[in-house]
């Protein structure tokens, strides 16, 4: 077994010296914060970009120095542990893992670095004294979109397009369908998912979103809500080209430069304020009162919501009244929105 011993020797050569040792200049002078991205990395026009926007704002307003790290394709938990450890060791505080995939890694690393705050977006399964679980009530925002869709629809058929069939996106579906049914019990909700994990093309490829929207339009849908990241721009294109309503997701897509030619038909967008959650966590650490435990962003705190930038939307007083009432009912606890379809 020469090969095995060679492999052992290889790992033993620099024994005791870890890559994390090198970046361990402790500096308390300049505050540092770091983000470790989800698959897709920066430039996904969605989740990761929103997290980056939060970091950027913290850099500009709080003067912290931001670092970013991207995952590699096909990596495992061990790689995430290594990445987070390197970021924590380099003096970043907080270290934020974007997406549920970081949960097991953060649980491990948080124990080794008790004085560093770790942010974990979209997951509350792993908790700790120095872990802030940043979660969102996506289903509440989607419920409002369902109310708006049911009110705006003339055919009584509306469409939901999910990027990848994962529990997170099912929350969007559940809230949307419930909002539609509560507003118009006779309405029909067409549901389609673009891909199944581990194929994450459904968040990335606009042509998939376009084809799915086309299919729903053919079946008579006249409002289409896509929770599909970048792929959603394809369904917005299809719906707008056909003169039907589209509902955007994550950020206010009415104001997105890439979608300017379709914006007249973007009824509204379900916003999810990942950027604020990142900023707030960094600020809390800088102020010496780091967030810990579950930090929930719902309708009540405007962490999720419905955008109203489209002038056409503002003219629909009947629709706005229904949305506002639903919002109030959810905040008051009169309506409980389901998180799974």
């Amino acid at each position, binding site marked *: 077994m020469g090969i095995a011993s060679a*492999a052992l020797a290889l790992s033993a050569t*620099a024994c005791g010296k870890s890559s994390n040792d090198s970046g361990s200049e402790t500096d308390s002078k300049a505050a540092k914060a770091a983000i470790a991205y989800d698959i897709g990395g920066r430039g996904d026009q969605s989740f990761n970009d929103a997290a980056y926007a939060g970091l950027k704002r913290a850099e500009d307003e709080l003067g912290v120095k931001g670092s970013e790290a991207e995952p*590699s394709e096909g990596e495992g938990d061990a790689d995430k542990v290594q990445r987070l450890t390197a970021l924590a060791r380099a003096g970043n505080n907080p270290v934020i893992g974007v997406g549920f995939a970081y949960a097991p890694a953060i649980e491990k690393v948080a124990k080794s670095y008790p004085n560093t705050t770790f942010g974990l977006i979209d997951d509350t399964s792993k908790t700790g004294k120095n872990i802030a679980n940043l979660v969102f009530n996506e289903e509440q925002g989607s419920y409002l979109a369902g109310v708006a869709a049911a009110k705006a629809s003339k055919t009584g058929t509306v469409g939901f397009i999910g990027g990848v069939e994962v529990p997170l996106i099912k929350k969007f579906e559940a809230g949307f369908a419930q909002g539609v049914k509560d507003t118009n019990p006779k309405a029909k909700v067409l549901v389609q998912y673009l891909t199944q994990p*581990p194929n994450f093309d459904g968040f990335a490829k606009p042509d998939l979103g376009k084809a799915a929207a086309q299919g729903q339009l053919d079946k008579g849908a006249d409002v289409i809500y896509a929770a599909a990241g970048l792929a959603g721009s394809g369904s917005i294109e299809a719906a707008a080209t056909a003169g039907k309503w589209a509902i955007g997701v994550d950020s206010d897509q009415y104001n997105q430069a890439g979608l300017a030619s379709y914006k007249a038909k973007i009824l509204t967008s379900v916003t999810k304020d990942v950027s604020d959650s990142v900023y707030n966590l960094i600020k809390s650490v800088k102020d010496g009162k780091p967030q810990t435990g579950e930090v929930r962003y719902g309708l009540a705190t405007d962490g999720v919501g419905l955008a109203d930038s489209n002038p056409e939307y503002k003219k629909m007083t009947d629709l706005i009244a229904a949305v506002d009432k639903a919002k109030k009912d959810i905040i008051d606890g009169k309506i409980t929105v389901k998180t799974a379809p």
Partner: protein
Amino acid sequence: MMKFDKDKLILGAAGPVLALVSSFVLTVLVLLATGLDPIEPITLMIDNAAFSDIQVLIVNQTGIYYLAALAVAIGFRMNLFNIGVDGQYRLAAMVSALVGASIELPGPLHILLIVVVAMLTGAFWAGIAGILKTTRGVSEVVSTIMLNAIATSLVAWLILPKNFGFQPEGSNNLTTGEIAESGWFPGIDMGEGNGVIYGFTFVALALGVVYWFVLNRTRFGFDLRATGASETAAQASGVDAKKMVLTSMLISGALAGLAGMPTLLGESHTYSLDFPVGVGFTAITIALLGRNHPVGIFFAALLFAFLDKASSSLDTEGYPKEITKIMQGIIVIAVVVSYELVRRYGLRRQQQKVGEELAAGGAIKTDKEVSA
């Protein structure tokens, strides 16, 4: 005879060396074209590889790639292109994780059960392509690609909470539930902050020895190589070619199933939505680069693991780590081109030699031994 072997060795090494050198040169050119320092990222990566935590990641990844590449290589030796290693690997990891999490047995038995289930699942999935090929003549290239897509859908369906999956409270992940500690494969702890070398890595290396022995020292291995070289000729000499196709597909699938074991038994202890994917595709390049030879594959796997892991922190130094993806991509093309060049050169050389011997009135020597 000895002289011919030496030629073969030089020609055999020429392919990979040519491929690596040209991919290195092309990567440097790409970096220059984008206005980046072409040398610094490479020195950074070498510096990174000196750290023991990165080394542990490299060693572990080498084991995973090695198993998957052996799965591809055994197909190649038989002239079969199993592109379905990735699907076989994922399905096997999922099913074995499921079985492992639902049953509790004393230590070694528990691990053995999980490993056997993984091998059977992988073999079953590859076997479908094998049966389609032997009974209906369906190209395994097409059927294994399609089976990859079907495996994706099947795994996605199986892991739904309403079927066999499990959604931890407060998580957006889906898992198969955690395997009890008796089903964890012990590893070598390299110390705080350095990580653990998966025990299964050594199983992977041992399988390399088994692979070499079976292919080169058994009747089965001879039949396999003979069928790979020429199916009709092998059949004429009494080898049941159809049986060989099916058997090698089954073995390839079983090995693909094992490729998920280092991660499953050593780290995650569950199959979840973020289980590593794409291993089976990288393995094709590794098998090609390693010329289907167990030692060649080892170094190719080590190289790819190094490129993957040592590049992880290039981002923070201002270099896109995707340059290693470019490098790996160029290696694929360079490998195919340079092997063809070397093969043609070797063929011409051989013909020349035969011509010379004929001219000299000597006997024709045709001890041509073709390897995949």
